[in-house]
């Protein structure tokens, strides 16, 4: 099932023709209407006429998150305020929030993209979709809401948190689709198991995104809830959720590349990398009206997969995000992603354990401590059983990242739990 077969299954030449035409139009609009970009292009000695096709994309300068902050709140808008019908903003954990605006056409385009994604996961007008992403400034809730409505599903706009109510409505309304962060899905799965209510649920599809997750976590959620779990990807700067989505083949996420042109660059040099190489994902939005972005650096590390997918779609796919280049930890010169630690833990634990990484610097030497909650199945009464568990975890981490981690077992439910994005890392170094 395709939502928009013409474009999702278009051949390469057709896709590039669409991209090139849209890129050219976007550059003209931006050049005329956004002083920041006009200056930036002038500095680079480029006019919109120099960009003939997507093959010239690499000539354009990058946009980074700091540019959004420097132009807070509306400095990058390419339309007058009376055309903007929606504003979203990211949480401003470091400095000011980043603001994004949408015209009516932008919202239409977003719903179209989400509808394609929902269809990829098999969601249709026969489904009841429970949206447990946060509603509000965060794009997750409303993005999923209008997208599911677009395919005709019955949407439950319950928003995030309040697990008891989530499960009650899931049971009473017979929700068939759940959309939330994977860590919250994991938490729901745990609660469903604890309460023994799985048989009362009709869930069959999970649409999970907004944070990186591992295959092990996916298996746990899929097996526990007896659903198929799909990764959805997006970021508010580009549109929100629905920039890319997994199809039933679960072999990379299809990028809506007629709207968002992807590139992979070397994060150090900015040089464009060939398909298949791991680097930083960069997007150019070619149809967005309110706030188009040229070569926006996502800080997400992944690789691109080209070629027709078994599902029949031809759009470029991205591999699961391996981490963010800005939350990547460098410990004693080793690049460490929290998702790698989780993978190491999942080789020992049957399901995703609650864990926390603590990085310290003692006498100029970085140390990594991994706190893991002890679960009942791993010990009986002896110290050696717990010591063996610690050793297995430690050995797995060493073989995966080449770094020694000291493992500290802690009591069940003693680490902070989040119902949204998981807070996994405490870095006490002042770098």
């Amino acid at each position, binding site marked *: 099932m395709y939502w928009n077969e013409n474009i999702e299954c278009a051949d390469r030449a057709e896709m590039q023709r669409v991209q090139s035409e849209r890129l050219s139009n976007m550059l003209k609009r931006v050049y005329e209407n956004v002083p920041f970009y006009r200056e930036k292009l002038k500095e680079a000695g480029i006019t919109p006429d120099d960009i003939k096709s997507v093959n010239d994309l690499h000539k354009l300068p990058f946009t980074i998150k700091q540019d959004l902050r420097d132009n807070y709140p509306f400095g990058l808008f390419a339309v007058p305020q009376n055309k903007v019908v929606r504003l979203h903003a990211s949480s401003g954990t470091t400095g000011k929030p980043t603001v994004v605006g949408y015209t009516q056409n932008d919202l239409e385009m977003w719903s179209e993209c989400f509808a394609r994604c929902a269809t990829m996961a098999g969601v249709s007008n026969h489904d009841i979709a429970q949206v447990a992403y946060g509603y509000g400034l965060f794009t997750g809730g409303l993005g999923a809401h209008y997208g599911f409505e677009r395919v005709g599903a019955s949407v439950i706009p319950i928003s995030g948190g309040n697990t008891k109510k989530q499960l009650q409505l899931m049971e009473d309304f017979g929700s068939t689709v759940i959309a939330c962060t994977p860590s919250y899905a994991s938490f729901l799965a745990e609660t469903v198991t604890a309460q023994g209510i799985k048989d009362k649920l009709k869930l069959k599809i999970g649409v999970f995104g907004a944070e990186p997750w591992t295959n092990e976590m996916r298996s746990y959620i899929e097996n526990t809830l007896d659903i198929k779990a799909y990764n959805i990807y997006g970021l508010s700067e580009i549109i929100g959720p629905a920039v890319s989505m997994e199809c039933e083949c679960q072999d990379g996420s299809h990028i809506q590349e007629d709207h968002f042109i992807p590139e992979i660059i070397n994060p150090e040099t900015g040089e464009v990398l060939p398909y298949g190489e791991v680097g930083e994902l960069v997007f150019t939005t070619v149809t967005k009206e309110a706030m188009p972005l040229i070569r926006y650096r996502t800080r997400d590390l992944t690789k691109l997969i080209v070629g027709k997918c078994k599902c029949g779609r031809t759009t470029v796919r991205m591999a699961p995000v391996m981490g963010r280049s800005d939350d990547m930890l460098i410990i004693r010169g080793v690049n460490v992603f929290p998702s790698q630690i989780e993978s190491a833990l999942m080789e020992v634990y049957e399901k995703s354990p609650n864990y926390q990484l603590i990085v310290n610097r003692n006498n100029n030497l970085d140390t990594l401590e991994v706190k893991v909650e002890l679960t009942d199945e791993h010990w009986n009464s002896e110290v050696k059983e*717990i010591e063996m568990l610690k050793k297995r975890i430690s050995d797995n981490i060493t073989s995966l990242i080449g770094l020694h981690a000291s493992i500290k077992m*802690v009591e*069940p439910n003693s680490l902070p739990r989040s119902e949204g994005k998981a807070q996994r890392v405490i870095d006490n170094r002042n770098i």
Partner: protein
Amino acid sequence: MIIKQLSIFLEDKVGRLAELTEILAKNDINMSAFSVADALDYGILRVVVGRPELAAQILKEAGYSVKMTDVVCLAVPHQPGGLYKALHILSENNIAIDYMYAFASNVDSATVVLHSDDVKHLAQVLQDNQMELVKSNKIYQV
């Protein structure tokens, strides 16, 4: 013959053991014997209590990782060589003890709590050699 022992994982935190004993006290659960195995940054409390099932449930509800393990309680007379006799039998039978701890139950004898890989076998060997095992109804009421 087989006694239920509770093992409770305890993080190294001041007052954690006090909290646990308070919970048992409030629920009117008596501790007959206990020992603490201490590792680098955690400990395992092993305890024989009256009403072990109830105690395990209460402690789990209080958030502890609690395991119930079979152990054997051996009565050892208060005289030189008392423990040797028992341990000699075990070594002759090639049984390795994982851990043990003792408490004095009355003036004539002490009770030794023993755990090995195969607790049933352990109990059988001791009985076959005329060693006195403490019965569960007795130990839970010490």
